[in-house]
């Protein structure tokens, strides 16, 4: 299926080889990180030009997919908020203690408009330091978190 090989060099960069061409420092990028994380992944060269397009991640051989996923894992950082345990105030700026799929942390909400509605139930919250937190399904959160969140929506 795929016409290229992907390896990791000692410098920790991905190397793509195809028909004698060699690209070092290849970056995998999701085209739709939120809407369709496992589809439409593009491989960019170090200069930022697209060198390969992957329609579906699961169509790749296991080793290549594992490499791409591990590279994506350390590039993409959108912790998913599972629970909001505490907010410092209902007026912004407000510091939230949250439980995420990446562990417990706190985020600084600078203004209410940093909460973006992705759909009726999904939210993207950008904290004061540029990290994006996601809430995939509002309805699935516990009452306490929903009540806290409701004060900001």
């Amino acid at each position: 299926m795929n016409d290229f090989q992907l390896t990791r060099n000692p410098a920790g960069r991905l190397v793509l080889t195809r028909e004698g061409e060699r690209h070092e420092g290849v970056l995998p990028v999701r085209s739709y990180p939120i809407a369709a994380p496992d589809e439409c992944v593009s491989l960019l060269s170090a200069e930022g030009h697209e060198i390969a397009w992957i329609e579906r991640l699961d169509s790749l051989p296991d080793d290549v997919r594992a490499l791409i996923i591990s590279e994506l894992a350390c590039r993409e950082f959108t912790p998913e908020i599972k629970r909001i345990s505490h907010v410092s105030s209902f007026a912004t700026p407000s510091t939230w203690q949250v439980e995420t799929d990446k562990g417990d942390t706190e985020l600084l909400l600078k203004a209410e408009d940093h909460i973006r509605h992705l759909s009726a139930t999904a939210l993207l919250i950008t904290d004061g330091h540029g990290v994006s937190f996601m809430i995939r399904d509002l309805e699935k959160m516990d009452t306490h978190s929903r009540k806290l969140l409701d004060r900001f929506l």
Partner: protein
Amino acid sequence: MNNPIPTPASLPDAWCAIARSRLADHDEILAWLEINLDARLNFSKSLLLVTRSGLAYIDNERSTTDHFPFRPGLSVSRHDHGGVGRIELFDGSVRQACWFYTLAHNVQAMRFIRQFEQYLEAALTGVPCIDDAPECCPDCLSPMSADQGECPQCSSTINAPPSTWTLLRLWRFAKPYKWQLLSGFLLMLASTAATLVPPYLTMPLMDKVLIPYQNGTPIDFVVVSWLLAGLFGSALLAWGLGWAKTYILALVSERIGADLRTITYEHLLRLSLEYFGGKRTGDLMSRIGSESDRICVFLSLHLLDFATDVLMILMTAAILFSINPQLALATLVPLPFIAWMIHNVRDRLRTGFEKIDRVWSQVSNVLADTIPGIRVVKAFAQEGREAERFRVANQHNLQVNDRINKIWSLFTPSVSLLTEMGLLVVWAFGIWQVSNNQITVGVLTAFLAYISRFYARLDSMSRIVSVTQKAAAGAKRIFDILDHVSSVPEPVNPVHLNTIDGRIDLTNVGFRYGNRAVIKGLNLNIQPGEMIGLVGHSGSGKSTLVNLMCRFYDVSEGAISIDGVNIKSLPVSEYRRHIGLVLQDPFLFFGSIAENIAYGRPDATRAQIVAAARAAHAHEFILRLPHGYDSLVGERGHGLSGGERQRISIARALLIDPKILILDEATASVDTETEKEIQKALDNLVEGRTTIAIAHRLSTLHKANRLVVLDKGEVVEIGNHDELMATEGAYYRLYQAQARNVDTDLDDASPVEIEHKVSA
């Protein structure tokens, strides 16, 4: 960089103990960095240390410690992407380790890396490292002490949540009117007292006139006329005093509102472009317009009424107690209940009203988004969709209002019910007292007269709950603007430059927009009078660089200096006076052409305006307009062509005679013929000034002394046209692509990569 060697004392105690137990006894900790992500980007705290012997990494959760002793070939690099920073340690070209952190720790991380590099060099060469200038806050330039990650000045103002007593902060605006306020208060006291006279007079009217008459005593008309005159006089007095009080206080509150609006707007204008980028016009307009009006109405109407009511309750209570303490006590019993109920509902209503505010600004945002883009909406025939978007927002507004109305509607009838209950208590207790001859019928009548007024006011007082909350929410939104510190702050100790030569030095400039690095480690020295052409694909950071030079934003790293002085230490408006800016889409304000040309220098004489217009090749077309220089141009310069507007904006830049000139795609939106006209105008403008020009069409940069080719925020090539053509690099490719097709934009000219697709 300075950092007096961080003793382990600056390290948090918990880490200190761990680090001590993991390191060799004699190893001294020189620098530390707490990182908060592990290799799989889970939140987990670990510690990086620079010690005398090398770099150490302490992973507390897995209780491992990695040592990387100093040796030649060791190097560290740092990148960030999407809010995550990454520190990589290389030995030659082999990666030894990779650590992650969120950008909240970025300042510390960068300092840590510099320290690492210094100590590495010191360890390898044997020369101890030297400390240089003290660290400054990247935002406000105030000095920071070592190991403070955030500037104490900036972070304390930005991150502190606003207090609940926001309304009290309005005192700042009320202070200039304190004498008017005092006289208003005294008038209020007097008028309230006057309104309390009539019920008091019902007592003698009842006991001395009506009841004796029923018992057979004839009416004493002298007493009656005195009592009636008293009633009339007190009513008249209350009327006059009430009028004076309301008038004075309304006058004051209107002035407070006006001051609030003006000050907020002035503050808003001083905020950096970054603030405007993140806010919607509709929202800002409603904050300054309707919120300040709401506060004004609150002050002049509701707060006034409330204060009057409180005064009346206090006075009434005093009078009632003086007449009969027992009955007064019974009368006032329901009061705490009502107070409790008000307090209870208060919290719910407040959150509800805040929500309504937010939803309401959503509704107006839909309008503010759509109406300016109406041409696009119509062109794509999406009126239905936009109408639907508005309908949804409006529906949401309705739902939120419905929810709050549920509580609100229950509130008022409940207060009325309690009022009736209160009256019932007075009746019952009063009749019992009358039957025991403890009080006269007149006293009871007076009590009822007082109490019915009293409760009627309680009902309206309860309204203060919601209006106060609304006004507080409005005040909060206004103070949000007022509290926002410009991210382009005025320097603490400004340096004044009266005349400048126009030398610009960019050293190691980096800029991050949100979590995306737009400019990285850029170095450029521009000589006075030199013309620099910035070339590159769109998104390569040209416009950002220009925005940084104008100080619309502040650099995230590095420094921009003019004549050797960091631009952050110059007063912002003084600095911008030296800069002339010509933009791609020139904005003309509503007013005459002359006013628009003289925008940057309102004191310019007519002759100067005409001279500037001549130099900008705008004079002749202006004369062809029916009203010449007095012709009105609209918001976007309706009635003028793109080229004409552009030449007016060039005249505007010429008139302030700036030493530094910035042309941001000045000829991009006009046809070739007009471009030649504008080019002639620009050639006049460029003469003798340091010029930075961005142009899509490379041909417009033929006069540039040097061309700087940017790609992804980095300089890839510098040189004049001939040199760059000779090297056959990025510029050569751009130029070739344009030469083939004159009208091609740079974006289309990117070197074509063969795209292979992997199909599923």
